């Protein structure tokens, strides 16, 4: 069990810069998610920590000890590969006992205790009945558990997982998520989990690290990263459907401020007006989560922005609507069944406190007080 620190890690493959500058700290026993699309550098980071890739720069410390020059076999890490990498010429048992028979660990795990340990882990994962099978006879879910088991049998300092459940069907994925969380709680091992799926990251992790093109963009708790994204990229990455990012301008409306753009107008909350006053007539990107968009089939008193429904996507408990208002396209997620059809006229509005503001060029978020956001802040 150990902490993990990465400082300025760089890695280049031929002409591709996989990691430009990766730094983060993972405390002992914490569950951290490495979130980013494919190509962001998640796998490279994990492999660098495991020792099968050698970074071109930066430091990696496990438990405070610099491990850059220690080969993989000397670091006590475990890695669950995205495609499992099970040894095809061994049985499930053979796969799981393999790490225990390594020279470095051989004395620690004598024959019977090794077998016992394998049984324990297999039972925990529910694969005890499969121990005699060959790897190609197993289903995807079973293989994934074997890969997990192989990683868990020793007691690694750091537990690394590379999209381990991405190749399972949706239902299985959901079940495994819960199981992984429970396992990690029980065993308490420091875990780094790579995934492109934000919901997975939010469900599993204590801390999320958002990775983009080899750089760390934001580090924070799931709520912090979701509610206080550091820029448009992070805001867009988390949330489904994606956050609406609208190009607007701040303008004065009889003493109050409003964000105006292409026929759509959102009022700005007075508490935020202070910080935004200097930006009057300046361009700004406004972010609104689909769940915060209010849709009404009838014109509300006080007016509002009208638009036409372009698409309706029923999702059982919720419905997603795409509305064209003025020159903007807005995605809204509303509850319950809707009678709305394409080409219906609706009115949309947003509660001022749910608006996000981002710099137009850099995409960085402009800090303004938000009404109901929790106090847990971003750490960057």
């Amino acid at each position, binding site marked *: 069990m150990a902490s993990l620190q990465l400082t300025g890690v760089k890695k280049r*493959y031929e002409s*591709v810069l996989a990691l430009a500058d990766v730094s983060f700290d993972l405390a002992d026993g914490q569950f951290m998610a490495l979130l980013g699309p494919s190509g962001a550098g998640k796998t490279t980071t994990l*492999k660098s920590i495991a020792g*099968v*890739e*050698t970074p*071109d720069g930066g430091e990696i410390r496990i438990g405070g000890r610099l491990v850059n020059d220690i080969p993989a076999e000397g670091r006590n890490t475990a890695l669950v590969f995205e495609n499992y990498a099970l040894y095809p010429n061994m049985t499930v048992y053979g796969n799981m006992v393999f790490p225990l028979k390594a020279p470095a660990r051989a004395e620690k795990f004598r024959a019977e205790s090794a077998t016992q340990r394998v049984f324990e882990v297999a039972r925990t994962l529910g694969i005890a009945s499969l121990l005699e099978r060959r790897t190609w006879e197993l289903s995807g879910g079973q293989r994934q558990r074997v890969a997990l088991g192989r990683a868990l049998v020793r007691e690694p300092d750091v537990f690394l997982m590379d999209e381990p459940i991405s190749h399972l069907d949706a239902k299985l994925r959901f079940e495994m998520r819960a199981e992984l969380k429970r396992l990690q709680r029980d065993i308490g091992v420091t875990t780094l989990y790579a995934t492109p799926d934000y919901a997975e990251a939010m469900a599993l992790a204590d801390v999320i690290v958002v990775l983009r093109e080899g750089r760390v963009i934001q580090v924070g708790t799931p709520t912090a990263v979701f509610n206080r994204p550091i820029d448009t990229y992070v805001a867009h990455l988390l949330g489904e459907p994606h956050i609406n990012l609208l190009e607007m301008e701040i303008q004065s409306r009889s003493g109050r401020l409003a964000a105006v753009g292409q026929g759509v107008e959102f009022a700005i909350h007075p508490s935020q007006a202070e910080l935004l006053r200097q930006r009057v007539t300046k361009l700004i990107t406004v972010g609104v989560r689909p769940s915060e968009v209010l849709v009404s089939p009838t014109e509300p008193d006080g007016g509002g922005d009208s638009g036409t429904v372009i698409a309706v996507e029923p999702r059982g408990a919720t419905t997603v609507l795409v509305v064209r208002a003025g020159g903007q396209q807005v995605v809204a997620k509303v509850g319950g069944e809707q009678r709305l059809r394409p080409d219906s006229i609706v009115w949309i509005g947003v509660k001022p406190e749910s608006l996000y503001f981002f710099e137009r060029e850099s995409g960085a978020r402009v800090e303004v007080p938000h009404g109901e956001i929790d106090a847990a802040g971003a750490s960057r």
Partner: protein
Amino acid sequence: MRPSKSTARPARNATKRLMLAPAFLFFAAFTIFPLIFTAYVSLSAWNIGGRHIFIGLANYRSILGDITYLLSLRNTVLFTLATTFIEYVLGFGIAYLVNGVARWQRPIRLAVLLPMLLTPIVVGFIWKMMLDPSFGPIDSVLRHLGLPRINWLSSAVPAFMGIVLADTWEWTPFMFLILFAGLRSLPTEPFESARVDGASPWRIFWDLTFPLMIPASAAAILLRSVESFKLFDIVYLITAGGPGVATSTVSLDAYFTGLRAGDLGSAAAMTIILLIIVIVVTMSFLQLVARFGQSKMRPLSSPKDLASSRANSRTQVHETR
């Protein structure tokens, strides 16, 4: 993106080099060194006892004027052309046929491949036996069919044909192997759509199959002809170059000159010339294919064109409706 090959750390570098080292050692000792050495020998008068003096290009001049050598050269070239062509056509045909066979494909494939796997010397003696005028079956079969007797091994042209026959028997399977693999790896969609569009099998072959098979064909032809230039085993056993020098090949001539007559210098020169020929042929062939492949690849008739060549009847049916 293919996952990492390790970036080399000094320790790794040593391991990397070590892995290649033994293979390279052998390569240097048995290929590079002999090559240079043979070249040197070809420039000397070197007899089998080991005495040698440097004489420059004298060997080359003398063998290029030697009638035996020139005949051997001619034979080798003729021979390569003949066998490669015959074996290619036959091999392609057989590959095509076998590809269409549904059942028993494995045993048939095995049976077809068999001759190629046998030791060439054995093939040589088998055919010598078969072609023997008194005891071989071929002659008696010919007689039963009423055809004139052929003195296979004692006259020039039949001897040549006999060797071609034996070589064809042995190496057509080689062409078959490569072409069959090529046929199997062709995509099925173009063929399906061509058939749906009503193209005739002949057209399908010429406009679709053959052009798509050019890479495989090129490979097969190139490989086979290179091997064919080295022809030695079969000839040695069946005719030993005879009658006279009617079936002598370059390798054979080199062997006899070098190790029977003891003139290693000339023998070396012969082999060097052979090497040069092989390299030149290979290079020019590859160039040819590269350029030919480019131009043929693009204007593949679309399945529509194929259909139109045969489609008249169809359009008529549509018209009358």
